[in-house]
């Protein structure tokens, strides 16, 4: 187990470095002169351009810049905002909880919903319930979350007045966005759990368990579901990327001051260090989530550890 964890962590490092290098290169990938792009076409004297270039370190050799950037990024320093001049990491850490709360709440709602419906679909295979769940899950994979969010605001905030339109007002303000965010993932998990469950239910050990006279309940939940969940666990890490992206967009609908709004703002104000920081930060998070999933997967399934 220890070896597995070490190996997995060692795989994480080069990928993370790759992301950091890509993020670093961003400023150099901008077509034309980066300083001009940052100024957004505003007139600026040649002297000021040189000064800014120096400030951003763009006048040094590329490799020096890269080493410097990586060295700071490892310590969590992602430069200063071009707009507020404050460290980018401070803004990100301030806003980040709003995004993480939403993403985790979406995950927390989506996983049980998806697994429960997936099991129901598999058990009631071929019935109207199963078909309904299959069509329903496809609908929720296809529905634009930000649009569905608008409809829910209309029903629950404007019409019924039960929930706030948005903002940061505690748990009540989190219910609606978290629910909307969970739908896509829940729908994917429903389909995956159903398929995986159907496969497991055909296996020999389930037939053995049944023939031993175990109750259907024990067979389903103790024997089948536990094994059927293996592929489900692996997908959870990947789902996290979708949740993060979904949260970025839903923040606009529900006026949550999270990373997504910060990113959009930064793109419009051409605050490149801020964009770089947000990309690096959210990718690091995604990589860590996957690392965590892989390790817990190995804990759950002994076969993985020995591969």
């Amino acid at each position, binding site marked *: 187990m220890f070896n597995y964890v070490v190996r997995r962590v060692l795989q994480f490092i*080069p*990928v*993370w470095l*790759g*992301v950091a*290098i*890509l*993020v670093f290169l*961003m400023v150099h*990938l*901008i*077509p034309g002169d980066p300083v001009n792009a940052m100024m957004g076409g505003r007139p600026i004297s040649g002297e000021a351009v040189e000064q800014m270039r120096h400030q951003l370190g763009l006048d040094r050799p590329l490799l020096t810049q890269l080493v410097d950037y990586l060295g700071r990024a490892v310590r969590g320093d992602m430069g200063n905002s071009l707009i507020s001049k404050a460290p980018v990491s401070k803004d990100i850490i301030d806003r980040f909880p709003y995004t993480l709360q939403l993403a985790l709440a979406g995950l927390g709602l989506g996983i049980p919903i998806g697994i429960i419906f997936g099991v129901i679909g598999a058990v009631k295979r071929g019935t109207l319930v199963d078909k309904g769940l299959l*069509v329903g899950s*496809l*609908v929720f*994979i*296809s*529905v*634009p*979350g*930000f*649009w*569905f969010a*608008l*409809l829910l*605001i*209309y029903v629950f905030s*404007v019409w019924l007045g039960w929930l706030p339109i948005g903002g940061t007002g505690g748990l009540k303000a989190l219910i609606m966005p978290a629910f909307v965010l969970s739908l896509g993932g829940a729908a994917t998990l429903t389909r995956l759990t159903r398929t995986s469950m159907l496969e497991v239910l055909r296996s020999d050990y389930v037939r053995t368990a049944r023939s031993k006279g175990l109750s259907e309940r024990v067979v389903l939940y103790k024997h089948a579901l536990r094994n059927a969940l293996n592929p489900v666990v692996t997908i959870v890490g990947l789902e*996290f*990327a*979708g949740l*993060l*992206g*979904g949260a*970025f*967009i839903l923040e*606009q*609908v529900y006026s949550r001051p999270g990373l*997504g709004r910060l*990113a*959009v703002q*930064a*793109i*419009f104000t051409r605050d*490149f260090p801020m*964009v770089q920081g*947000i*990309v690096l930060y*959210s*990718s690091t998070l*995604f*990589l860590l989530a996957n690392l965590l999933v892989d390790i817990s997967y190995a804990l759950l399934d002994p076969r993985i550890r020995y591969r």
Partner: protein
Amino acid sequence: MKALWKKGLDVRVSIIGMVAIILLAVFAPLIAPFDPLKQDIQDRMQPPNRHHLMGTDQLGRDVFSRILWGGRLSLTVGLIAVAIELVFGIIIGLISGYLGGAVDNLIMRLCDVMLAIPGLVMALFIVAIIGPGLTKVMIALGIGSIPGVTRLVRGATLALKDRDYVVASRAAGAKPSQVMMWHVLPNVLPPILVLATLDVGTIILAGAGLSYIGLGAQPPSPEWGAMLTGARDYFTVAWWLSVFPGIAIMLVVLFLNIIGDAVRDIIDPWLRQVRG
């Protein structure tokens, strides 16, 4: 195609629906009863009626006409982005799988890195580099999906390159580019077709989302996501402004998902053969 039609009622409905949507989008200039950008303040905020099938917006523009024209934009986003992902993904994937060695290693590590950035964040990152706008969003979403195709093509190429007919063609003196074009590519196309169909839907959804938050199509463009941005302020008094563009996006993506799933089911035995 025949097998696809026989898959079930939902698949048939989706195919008919998708064909109808494509026709409506292509012939929008002929079908749309009004100019999608023409404002008519006298006639604004009309609920759906005989004259304006889906009502009018805050500037008196006909929502139905805007949806029709918007369909062209959304479908274009999906098609262009998928074209980008396919062209680059296939070429890079073939090279990676066929050449192997250091080149393959480098390309695969680059894919790992790109896939480590969550999809929407990747799109935001590219839009930040090349700037906002609908065309830029197409490019961003296309580039972001290249690694997925690359990996798939590489995997299939690896599985195929030691098959007898490929080896034979190599032995007969065919150049690597010829082998890839004539013997490997045709055999990797089916799974890519499935991925592409499903990706058109995903990309249309993402494009609408990016337009909604203001990074894609800009007003007064009738792009569906952008229409919803405008509708947000009025949705308590004019439900039709937000309901119809949303349904339009959902239907297109739903139809594409159903068709893509059905195609995958049909191709699956083949997939097993290539992978196995």
